[in-house]
């Protein structure tokens, strides 16, 4: 084998490895789903506080939304894992990371506030800190720096809510969920769909 052939062979290996790694990532639908779900919940909560509208059914709003979110996610994820044509280490880390974040956010949202450990107004701030960590790591796994940079948006939002806790903090969380979660989810979904159609 000559040097030129060896170079071509290495290039070939490199290209196949890069292409295979690109296709393994999550397609961002989870970001969109959870983003929209929580925005709906927060919007209802915000208006119920502003307009002092508290029908008893609202007590079930969050248990219903979060319960629905978990059931939907587990069904979708189980199905996706069963049908996945490839399994990767990075994909497993990403899945475990977001599962852990979901469990942590659920504990902070329900158990933390119900136990009286902190006022409900701080829930968004605490969850934002955790989301910041998840986005910082996800960016590395996706190989996209801009996803990691979203972490700073979440952390700045968390600091703002911690320092100025009012009912309007909910609006900050809605904005963060829109611009740091749902929109990035749409971008990831669009990009990966395009990439998959090019690679397959």
């Amino acid at each position, binding site marked *: *084998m000559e*040097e030129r052939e*060896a170079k071509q062979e290495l290039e070939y*290996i490199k290209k196949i*490895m890069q*292409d295979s790694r690109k296709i393994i990532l999550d397609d961002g639908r989870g970001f969109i789903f959870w983003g929209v779900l929580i925005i709906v919940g927060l919007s209802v909560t915000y208006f119920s506080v502003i307009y002092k509208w508290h029908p008893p059914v609202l007590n079930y709003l969050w248990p219903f939304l979060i319960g629905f979110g978990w059931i939907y996610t587990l069904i979708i994820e189980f199905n996706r894992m069963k049908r996945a044509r*490839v399994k990767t280490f990075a994909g497993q880390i990403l899945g475990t990371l977001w599962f852990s974040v979901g469990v942590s956010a659920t504990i902070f949202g329900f158990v933390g506030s119900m136990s009286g450990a902190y006022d409900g107004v701080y829930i968004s701030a605490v969850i934002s800190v955790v989301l910041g960590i998840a986005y910082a790591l996800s960016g590395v796994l996706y190989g996209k720096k801009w996803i990691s940079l979203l972490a700073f948006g979440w952390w700045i939002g968390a600091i703002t809510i911690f320092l100025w806790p009012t009912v309007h903090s909910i609006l900050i969380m809605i904005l963060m969920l829109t611009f740091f979660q749902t929109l990035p989810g749409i971008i990831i979904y669009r990009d990966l769909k395009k990439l998959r159609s090019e690679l*397959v």
Partner: protein
Amino acid sequence: MTDFDYQQLDDIIHSRIRLAIMAVLVSVEEAEFTFLREKVNATDGNLSTHLKKLEDAGYIAVSKSFLDRKPVSRYMLTQKGRKSFEAYVEHLEKLIKK
């Protein structure tokens, strides 16, 4: 030609399709037959032959199951396969550096 010993190149891996299969499996933990077929651009028969050769050499392992009553074969690299692939790439790099 350099004084690099090309005989050291692993004959099992030194084939375009088998090299592609190994490269895919190094990048992912586990891959289905259909995924490999798309990635290496081979026919079912051709791919099966090459996969069998890699399996016989102990470079890859296969797990077979059923999904919706259809057989599914999943392939993964063995420890021996990973080491052989790394050695193969190392040889190529040495050849370039010589």
